[in-house]
């Protein structure tokens, strides 16, 4: 019996990937004997899958500068619904294989990409984008390490102008990073083989993490005839759009493609664009915000509670906050600093109640000891900026008096000299004065 949610997920994914949704699709049985395939066949859609001819756009960085990105597209050949097999666990020690059948029969969505990508990074980037799309749609959490998204790479090499070479299939990849590594190492291997006069076998290889290269898999032997046969227990899957929907049809029994299309959530590419428009942030920042699970939400929560400029928030979130997370290998949802806390800190900064140096100190403290608010930390550590304008003027005056040589340098037009003065004033005020204010006072005093 067909699972409705699976079909809906397939349609949503197909629409998000710009595919043509086939209003009629068929199911087939693919036969082979293996211990993890209890029925001796897998139900799949070989003849007529549910969605075809789509595209996936992804951005690769060109050169070292992160700001230079170009958009590439990989064509989607098809999306098909099929059944999962069980899981084989090889126990080398006792030379036995354990079979876990719990996932056998569960619905899968297979997305087949055309060979439009040319290196590991492109593939990894495309896969990451696909993960974001699936997560945004809610059709999968697409976590590769947990097997929610499984990726097999088909790799071949050829000289420009010549047809595609013999391909090998690389399996057992559990992260986008290793996907890239595996592909690149396989490309290297194939080139090496061909340049040494050998041939590439159409085989299945698995990626060995320790060795960092691919090895042939023992299990698969030669070409199999899967004896495809139409699945007799599943009638053709008919989908409708608003035009073709039969009148009086039971909504429980039919799926309307247009209805699903109207309710598609915002896709990552749309989100990025929106962030740029809404907050005026740069494209590469927009990318970065989407690249970490939960980061966008965190960012948006901070924005909600602070008056600080989005650019400021972005900078703090992407540089300082993310930096701390990465250093301690934490996920966003494990952060000891809440969005509210960061928002409060940024407010203090925005009001010029503290300097940016002080702010960084406060942040560090926030990270270390939970439960304290930024305001508490500021007062505890006496990090407030001097608000007393007169006292500041006096401080400047004192410094100027005490360093006539430097003052002369400034008057003579040395641009760096003023920084020295600022630095001295800061020291004198125990870093509690805003450098901008100091500069402004000094300049005023120094002007003729």
């Amino acid at each position, binding site marked *: 019996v067909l699972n409705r949610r699976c079909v809906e997920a397939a349609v949503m994914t197909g629409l998000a990937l710009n595919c043509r949704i086939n209003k009629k699709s068929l199911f087939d*049985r693919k036969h082979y004997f293996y211990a993890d395939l209890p029925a*001796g*066949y897998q139900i799949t859609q070989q003849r007529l899958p549910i969605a075809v001819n789509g595209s996936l756009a992804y951005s690769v960085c060109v050169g070292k500068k992160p700001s230079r990105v170009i958009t590439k597209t990989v064509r989607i050949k098809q999306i098909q619904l099929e059944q999962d097999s069980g899981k084989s666990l090889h126990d080398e020690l006792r030379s*036995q294989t354990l*079979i876990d*059948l719990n996932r056998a029969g569960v619905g899968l969505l297979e997305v087949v990409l055309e060979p439009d990508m040319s290196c590991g990074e492109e593939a990894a980037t495309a896969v990451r984008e696909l993960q974001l799309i699936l997560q945004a749609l809610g059709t999968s959490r697409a976590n590769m390490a947990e097997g929610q998204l499984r990726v097999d790479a088909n790799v071949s090499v050829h000289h420009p102008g010549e047809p595609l070479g013999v391909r090998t299939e690389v399996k057992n990849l559990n992260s986008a990073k290793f996907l890239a590594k595996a592909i690149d190492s396989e490309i290297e291997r194939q080139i090496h083989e061909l340049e040494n006069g050998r041939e590439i076998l159409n085989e299945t290889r698995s990626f060995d993490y320790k060795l960092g290269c691919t090895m042939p898999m023992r299990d698969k032997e030669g070409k199999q005839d899967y004896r495809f046969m139409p699945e*007799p227990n599943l009638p053709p899957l008919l989908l409708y759009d608003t035009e073709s929907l039969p009148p009086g049809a039971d909504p429980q029994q039919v799926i309307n493609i247009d209805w699903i299309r109207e309710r598609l959530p915002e896709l990552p590419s749309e989100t990025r664009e929106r962030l740029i428009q809404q907050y005026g942030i740069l494209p590469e920042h927009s990318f970065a915000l989407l690249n970490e699970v939960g980061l966008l939400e965190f960012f948006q929560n901070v924005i909600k509670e602070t008056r600080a400029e989005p650019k400021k928030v972005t900078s703090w979130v992407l540089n300082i906050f993310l930096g701390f997370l990465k250093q301690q290998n934490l996920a966003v949802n494990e952060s000891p600093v809440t969005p509210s806390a960061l928002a409060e800190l940024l407010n203090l900064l925005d009001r010029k109640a503290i300097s940016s140096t002080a702010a960084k100190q406060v942040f560090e403290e926030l990270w270390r000891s939970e439960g304290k608010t930024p305001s508490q930390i500021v007062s505890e550590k006496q990090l407030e900026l001097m608000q007393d304008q007169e006292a500041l003027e006096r401080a400047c005056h004192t410094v100027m008096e005490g360093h006539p040589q430097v003052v002369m340098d400034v008057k003579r037009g040395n641009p760096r000299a003023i920084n020295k003065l600022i630095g001295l004033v800061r020291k004198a005020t125990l870093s509690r004065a805003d450098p901008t204010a100091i500069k402004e006072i000094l300049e005023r005093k120094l002007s003729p």
Partner: protein
Amino acid sequence: MLGRTLREVSAALKQGQITPTELCQKCLSLIKKTKFLNAYITVSEEVALKQAEESEKRYKKGRSLGDLDGIPIAVKDNFSTSGIETTCASNMLKGYVPPYNATVVQKLLDQGAVLMGKTNLDEFAMGSGSTDGAFGPVKNPWSYSKQYREKRKQKPHGEKEDSDWLITGGSSGGSAAAVAAFTCFAALGSDTGGSTRNPAAHCGVVGFKPSYGLVSRHGLIPLVNSMDVPGILTRCVDDAAIVLGMLAGHDPKDSTTIQDPVKPFTLPTLTDVSKLCIGIPKEYLAPELSGEVRSFWSKAANLFESEGAKVIEVSLPHTSYSIVCYHVLCTSEVASNMARFDGLEYVLGDKEEEPLRTVSQNVNIGQKCHRCDINVSTEAMYAATRREGFNDVVRGRILAGNFFLLKENYENYFIKAQKVRRLIANDFVKVFNSGVDVLLTPTTLRGAAPYLEFIKEDNRTRSAEDDIFTQAVNMAGLPAVSVPVALSNLGLPIGLQFIGRAFCDQQLLKIAKWFEKQVQFPVIQLQELMDDGSSISEIEKLASVSLKH
């Protein structure tokens, strides 16, 4: 009491003339007496008595569930029955106890029916004799009937009485025999190429094949998914209608059932056939058809005509291709459906190991878990287990089916056969569209054969011969029913088949019921088997308007 119709017994139960427990015990006792027929693989005595007890409680409170409450029934052993062994008459499934009931079984039980047991069949429902199962062949009760015995006395014979026993036909032979021998009032069979109608004809009972999609196949261990249907065997057409009313309708667990629910119905009695048009397909006049059957067929046609119906010759031009087409499609689906039987999941494993009952467990297929002494690889183990677990017939069909499904053959065999199938189905559509209400054909070529003669040819040959009138119906998904007509010269039952329009099952049964009344088929006389020699039916059915010579 056992000879009554379902409706009569149901009334008797309601009126308290007999209790469900008494009825159940009578049937159980008769099952024991007729054990030599080998109609049952499993007799679910405890379960039955318990069900009868519950039924009795309901009757006492005046809250019976309906016409089937307390009625003994039997189920062919290829339907899954929760907690009761289901073997499909194969070694591969010996000891397999399903954790759920097939939908049709559940429906019967929900109506209060009492399950007597699981009946015998050809292994995995492949065959037309009920002779090729792992638990031995089924014997046709008519072998022991007075009618047959008397006729045989005329022939000189030196052999022992029992060596010339007759087959029941198949593959639902156990169900047919169980009903014919009065051990239950209705039995479930399955029909893929005629497996309900064929044994019905040979055992002198009604064998009904519903339209494909009308009755759920969930829990029916599949042979050919696109042709299988659950079949109903009863002693009269009205009984079959009652059962159909309980079983038909949409099942969410079977995506090939029609969408609409179906309500139980009372079969109206037809009195006037003058508005009917009966079609006689000329291609069904096969040269192998026995003279007797042909004669009965002809007489039946005349009967309709004499009562005012229009009887015309029609043509189903692609009939001659249907057997071959059926073989290609059937074996292909069989090869696919049998792929799951690797001897691990459904029990056939090392006896020392715990038998594995369900699929969703961690399974250790380490190189020590198998019954054959092959330690090499999974594939070798599968091959060995499947060789042991399946009989020749099943293995033969699997090999043939896999051949047809190979990439290089798929187009020429499978696809071609599907196309021919459509042509065959269209033949029927054309005929029905031209104003024909039902088709009238023989069910079998001749009466039941003696076992010793039947086994002279192999299963495949026999199936090809015996399915000739029945299997085109499965290809087209139409409803059909075999109604016993009269006894042959040898004193054996002959049945004729009515084929109806898709989803016009009620109308088909209505016509069959009229016909049944006209022919007054004699009751089987198994006097020596009954308690106190009491007669099986209160009404002695004498030939009044009959088709006997």
